């Protein structure tokens, strides 16, 4: 099981980035090997449009099953759902704390996008 968290810096101690599509980077925790990996998101940070969709593809293609972020828009949610990635919302805190909260079952799973699409 791999868990992706939108992050402001490439570190487990980084604050969670509340944005998904235009997050600075993604921190990926592998529950099997108990290791962290960082994925840059610079390209989508500067995209004119479709950042959420491409960020969703990044998460899916990195083999993640779970995404934790501040918010998730409709197109990103549709893309993640199609690839059966579960989306969880978190307010603030560090990446590491977000993963702990997910594993202890205290995070809320999103049933749908929680923000409007934006251009």
């Amino acid at each position, binding site marked *: 099981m791999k868990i992706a968290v939108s992050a402001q810096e490439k570190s487990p101690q980084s604050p969670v980035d509340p944005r998904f599509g235009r997050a600075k980077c993604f921190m990926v925790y592998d529950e099997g090997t108990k290791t962290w990996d960082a994925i840059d998101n610079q390209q989508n940070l500067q995209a004119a449009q479709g950042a959420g969709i491409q960020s969703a593809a990044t998460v899916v*293609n990195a083999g993640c099953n779970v995404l934790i972020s501040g918010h998730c828009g409709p197109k990103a949610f549709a*893309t993640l759902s199609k690839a059966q990635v579960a989306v969880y919302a978190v307010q603030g805190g560090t990446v590491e704390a977000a993963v702990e909260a997910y594993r202890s079952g205290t995070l809320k799973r999103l049933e749908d996008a929680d923000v409007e699409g934006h251009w």
Partner: protein
Amino acid sequence: MKIAIASGKGGTGKTTVATNLALLLGERGENVVYLDCDVEEPNGHLFLKPSIDRRIAATIPVPVIDESKCTACGECVKFCQYNALVRLGKTVMVFPELCHGCGGCMLLCPQKAISERDREIGIVETGRACGVCFANGRLNIGEAMSPPLIREVLRQSAAAAIAVIDAPPGTSCPVITSLRTADFVMLVTEPTPFGLHDLGMALDMVRELDVPHGVVVNRAEAGNIDAESFCAQRQVAVIAQLPDDRRVAEAYSRGEMVLTAVPSLRRHFETIWEYIRGQVHA
């Protein structure tokens, strides 16, 4: 000759200038078409009151992927500047609402797995109104892709000698699309800090596009020289100043033309036309 009316700030009087200029030219026997390119909120028809004789759907071509041929190589995804295609493992998903219809993905797909279908983004209406040919675009609600519809509206100028293009406000893609082929751009402003700030952005835009241009000050107030000072500083000509006149506002609220409701202002539109004609033929 293509004359575009633009502004930067919204609500400065683009449609008032554009519709009255078109009417003036029609009255003079010119073969003129008025093109409402503000396709997100067209309002020229409220004043010209055209009888519409044709409505056609405007479409853009969007990709359709044949999954039996697609190998998910990702070439189309890498190529698309608008992120309309996304690769998820072994499949490629299409987001038609993000596609600008360039057709590039179809051309470069190594498997020839991509074909196109038309997606409707709005309609173009054409008709006639008091000596003026009329066309406007109406973008579908929720649609973000207006430039292809604007280009379709601009195509309705083919048979006319003079096109008066009523551009959308702002300085982004829909405005650039509306102005790109113009021979002259008239920028309408109002003597307020907001109006002049956005006029500055509009001036930067038309200078970047390298199109001849001038300024009309609308709702000009006696004693307020803010707009003149601004235009002098930015070295752009003020062609006319339409006074802040309650009769104009009342006519506007009833959907009436300034030329008929306040005939004493006709000379300003004549000045505008003479200036543009001099500039374009010079």
